[in-house]
Structure formats: C-alpha cells, structure tokens
C-alpha cells in the first residue's frame, strides 16, 4: 500500500492572516475583500506573490473627482470597450466584479439613464480588475481600479474620516482626476477648486507615507516623494470641441490654478478629453427638479487616459 503524503503544512497556511495591502489590517487567508476597507484581497495576494506565485506588483489606478463627474460611467464604458475587444487587445478584463461595473453602467445607458450615484459605503464599491499582457515579460500586469464615491474622497480630504480612501490613494500607482467639462464651460469655478483640493490631498498623503517609512542609512538622500502619474480627464466633453482639439491648452486656459498645481505637484501628468454620451438632455420633472438623460451612447477618447497611465506604470 502506497503512502499518501501528509500535507499538514497546508494547515498552517490557513492559520496565517494576510494583511490588506492598502490598510494593513489582517484578514483571513480565504477572505475575498478586506474586512476593514473593503478592498479586494487579490491585491494583497498578488503583491505578496501568494496567489499566482508571480512577483508582479499590482497597479492601482484610482479614479478620483467630485461627485457626478462621470467616474463610474467612464469605468463601466472602458471595461465594456475592452471586453468587446477581447483577445484583440493587450488589456483584458478579469473577474466578476468587473462585469458588475460594466453591467451597472451599460445597462443604465441602454435604458436611457445614467447609473445611480456611487454608494458612500466603501464595502459597496466595485473594483474593476484588468490584466495587461506585456510582450517583454512572461506574466501579466494586474491592474485594479476602484469605483469610489467622490463624496467620500472630498470628505476624507476635509476630516480624514474614511481610512479606506487614504489607504487607496497612498498606494495608487496612477491617478485619474475627473473634471466635469460642462460645468467648467458654464463658468463654475468650483470644479477647478475641487480638483485642486483632491490633488493637494494626494500630495499630502504621499508625503505622509514617505515620512512614515523607517529611516535607512544611505549615502545619498532619499528621493522626494512623488505624486503618481496623473491623467486629468475632462469628462462629459461632448459639448466642447475645443477640449477635444487641445485638452492640455483647455486645462491651462480654463483652470490656471489647477494647471499650476500640476506643474508643482505632479511632474508626470497629461490631459485628456473624454465623453461617453453623444448628447445629454436636462429634463425638468413634473414633481420639481430636473434629471439629466443620455440621449445616445457615443464613447470618445475613453481608452486613451487608461493606456497612458499603464504606459507610465510599465515605464
């Protein structure tokens, strides 16, 4: 009778907690999401090389912006475009959570509505997961994109009441900074200041993270902490042809404060114009107020900022 190997060593694995890569809280080995911040544990597993046994640092590209700047719609649209391209693209969507984001956005647009605002509960946020195949490397680059509530981001910037946000932003390897082009065109200066606030907040988080690292003996001074590459996304640009023609000039001309901050804080940045709806109607409601409706879906410029950020990550 042959001896069966006694794989008791595996029992040990189940007793070791896995720290969340974003908030450092310990979680069970089999946890799917972090019990503290709601982030997918896949990030931690890939970071630690425990899932695929591949030492590939996962990329965390974080869409940020004020409420109702089009982050969710952008994310769902980008995922849908990528999933339609399938193997023809070097970027592929992965996991059920990505499909959830796609479904919520494309389903709503198909019914002639925008999706509901993102929930303020971090545990209800969707996390998109993509893989980028690289010809120069045998393994994929794993990319995660959280669909966060803009309200939470700004609130955390004010009173640091949402630890999930801080963990995500400190670990970000790329930032998508969303701005509502329509409001900028209408002369709403708040859009610029909200974007500026978020940018400065990210800068402070990066500095905090750098300060919290243990000092090491070095012959040379450690490099200054840097804000990760920032893609400034002028969303909802369907009514602004000037923005599509020259997005960088548009940002510089219309939002000088933000422009200056980008030069100071984010040496790696680029500006993009994006639209998903070909036209939007603001419809007054019989019960008061109004609602905005997408009249048709005509995505434009959606993948460009994503590809740029991935290009910065690959180097």
């Amino acid at each position, binding site marked *: 009778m042959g001896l069966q190997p006694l794989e008791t060593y595996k029992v040990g694995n189940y007793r070791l907690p896995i720290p969340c890569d974003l908030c450092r809280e310990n979680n069970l080995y089999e946890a799917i999401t972090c019990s503290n911040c709601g982030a997918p544990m896949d990030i931690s597993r890939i970071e630690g090389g425990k899932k695929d046994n591949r030492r590939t640092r996962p990329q965390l590209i974080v869409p940020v912006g004020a409420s109702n700047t089009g982050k969710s719609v952008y994310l769902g649209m980008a995922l849908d475009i990528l999933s339609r391209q399938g193997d023809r693209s070097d970027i592929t969507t992965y996991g059920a959570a990505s499909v959830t984001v796609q479904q919520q956005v494309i389903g709503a*647009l*198909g019914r002639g509505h925008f999706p509901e605002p993102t929930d303020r509960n971090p545990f209800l946020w969707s996390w998109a997961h993509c893989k980028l195949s690289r010809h120069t490397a045998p393994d994929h680059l794993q990319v995660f994109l959280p669909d966060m509530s803009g309200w939470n981001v700004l609130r955390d910037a004010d009173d640091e009441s949402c630890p999930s946000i801080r963990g995500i932003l400190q670990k970000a390897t790329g930032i998508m900074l969303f701005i509502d082009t329509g409001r900028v065109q209408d002369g709403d200066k708040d859009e610029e200041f909200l974007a500026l606030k978020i940018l400065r907040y990210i800068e402070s988080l990066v500095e905090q993270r750098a300060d919290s690292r243990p000092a090491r003996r070095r012959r040379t001074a450690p490099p200054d902490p840097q804000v990760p590459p920032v893609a400034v996304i002028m969303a909802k640009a369907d009514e602004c042809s000037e923005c599509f023609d020259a997005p960088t000039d548009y940002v510089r001309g219309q939002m000088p404060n933000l422009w200056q901050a980008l030069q100071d804080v984010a040496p790696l940045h680029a500006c993009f114009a994006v639209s998903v709806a*070909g036209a939007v109607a603001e419809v*007054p409601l019989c019960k008061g107020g109004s609602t905005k409706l997408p009249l048709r*879906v*005509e*995505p434009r410029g959606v993948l460009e900022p994503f590809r740029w950020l991935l290009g910065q990550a690959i180097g």
Partner: protein
Amino acid sequence: MFRKLTKLELLIGLGSTILLVVATIQHNMLTCGSSAACLCLIVGRLLERNRSAAATPDVGDFASDESESTPLPRKLEPRQRLAYEAATQSAPELIRNVLQNGRETLLLRSEIIGNLNEAQVNEIVDVVCEDMSLVPAGKVALSINDLAGSEKSKMEEVATLLVDRYAVNNAEYAEFVAAGGYADQELWDADVFDAMAAFVDQSEQPGPRYWRDGTFPRGKADHPVVGICWYEARAYARWVGKRLPTGAEWVKTAGWPVAASGDAVRQRTYPWGNSYEPGRANISQEGIGHTATVDDFADGDNVRGVRQLAGNVWEWTDDELTFAGSAVDSSVQLGLKSLRGGAFNTYLEGQASCDFESGDHVLSRRDNVGFRCAVSMTDLSEAVHEQLVAALGA
C-alpha cells in the same frame, strides 16, 4: 413679353455678324456659310423662346402683358419661383436646370406640371423613381420616451409619401449653397434669422460646419452632408421642394409595419429584419470610425431599397423630442428635435434600431448628423399619382 438673348448668345450673334461681313468682303464662302448658320441658330432660339412664353398659361401675379420685362417678385416660395420660371423659360431648359439640382419633385407640382408635355413628365417621373421610394399609407407603432422607464408605445397613422433613397450628400448640398440658399430668407424659419450668422464653415463662409472655403472636404462628395443643424436641413428641403420626414414617417419607412391582428402592427427592429447583423450598417462595431458614402452598405436596405436608415449618420426629423412626465402623464418639451437611425459612432446596436429615438438641440451641428427628405403624395399633382404608384409599388 419679349424674351431677350443671354449674354453668351449675344456674344456669339455679334461675333457671327462681324465674321459674316468680313467673309463677304473677302469672298470666303465657307466662312460666310458658317457665320450665317450661327446667326440663324441664335435667331431661331430667340423666336422659339418667345413662342413658348406666349403659349404658357398665366401663372397669376408672375407674368404681365403690360410691360416688356417683369421683375422676379421678391417674396416667392421655391415652387412659386419655379412656376414663374416655367412661364419664362423653355420647358426643356427648365427641366434641365431643375433636374441638375435634384429638385425634380417641384416639376410634378400641380402649379408646374401644366407646362410640361407627356414625354417630359415621364422623364421626370423616371428620375423621381430613381431617387425616391414610395411608403404606403398605414399605421406605425412608436415608442414613447417615458421618464418613469415604462415601455409604452402609441400608434400613428401615416399618409402615402415618397422618401429619398439616400441621405443628402455633400455634392447635393453644395448645389444649394452655390444657388445662394443661405442668403435666401424665404427658405428659412423666421425665428432662426438671428442665429444664422453661426451657420458658417471653418473659413467663416456660409455652409456646413466642417466645410472650408464654401466647399466640402476632398473626396467626400458622396458622403452624407453633416455639420448642419435642423434649420439648415429644413432650408435645403424647402429648396428642393420637399420637407423633413416626421418621426412616424421615418419609422414607417424603416420598420415597414404590416398589419397584425386587430389594430396591432408588426414591424422590423432593423430595416433588414429583427436582429442586428454586422456588415449591414455603419455603426461603431464596424470599426470604420467615420461616415461612408451614402450608397454603401446595400445589405442594410429596407424592403424598398431605401439605404442607410440604420447607421452612418443620425437623421433629423420634423418632430420635437419629448418625454412623458413621471408624476403626470404630460409631455415635456425641451426645444430638442428628434433624430433617428444611429451613426458611424453609435456604440449600442439597439440605438441604431428603427424605433430608437435620440435628439439634439435645434442649432446643434454635429459631425454625425445628416438628413434625408420626403414629400407627401398629396403635394404632387394627381396626374402622376397612378404612375408613381405603378412604378414604385403600393
């Protein structure tokens, strides 16, 4: 009224006279004969023109026996102007001029057709049959845009009409521009006069948005004209003696409803059938990324050969875009006009279906919005109804 010679004819006549005199002096019989023949031709044209003018029935205020030359009345609609021209030009000349501009349906109006003989009418009917398709009268089901999200529809009745087989292309629109269409206020709605300064091209000349120096981009003559707002589409339609189709007419053309049980109808989801099929329409999925020629995608025709009702460019209709309110069943009017059909960058296939309705602001001039024209059968002389129905099917 004595009809004068054109400048070219005067020049030829004068030259021929001088040549005749010189040739006579020099005893050059060949040159004498040629010059004399030329002179006879010019005189003959003059006599014929005046004979036709004398034989033309009175068309109301446009011709007068009391003066030698009657100036063209200023305030004329296109068909009134054409009636005037019918009274003052020879029929062949009139037909030639009008057919060149794609305005053939004007000739079949009751005010004009009396000036034409049977052969000429047949010629014009042939051209109309080539350019337009007949849509029979009947019911059509239209979806209602309901803010509450419920799927409601309504039935509308459509009278017999003719619809352009192809969207209006750049070359056709260029005729309108060259003929001074943008300067002719009679073609435009009065409420748009103040906004017309914005109806210019990239070089600030009157014309579609993406043209330059009064002409379309090179190689795009047979692409649908785009960068035109709803008012520009209407002005062109007036100029050619047609109009924009209503939403119901457009859907009837595309969906081709047939009677089902009771009052219900069954109509197609797409002009070719009930499922989207790649290769039949220029939408985003095709990967082209810009307009195709108006005669491309023949596999996407409706049952009667009307092309590109799905894809390529959205098409202006004459309808307002409305939304049924949620709390109270009332329509909310927004100053938007209805668009149908989808375009080259339409991402969701369902938005290129026959029944889907989009819209845009009346002054919007986008690179994926064009139009096609229609004309009611009742706007054409009854004398040609039977002929058109026989040729185009009912």
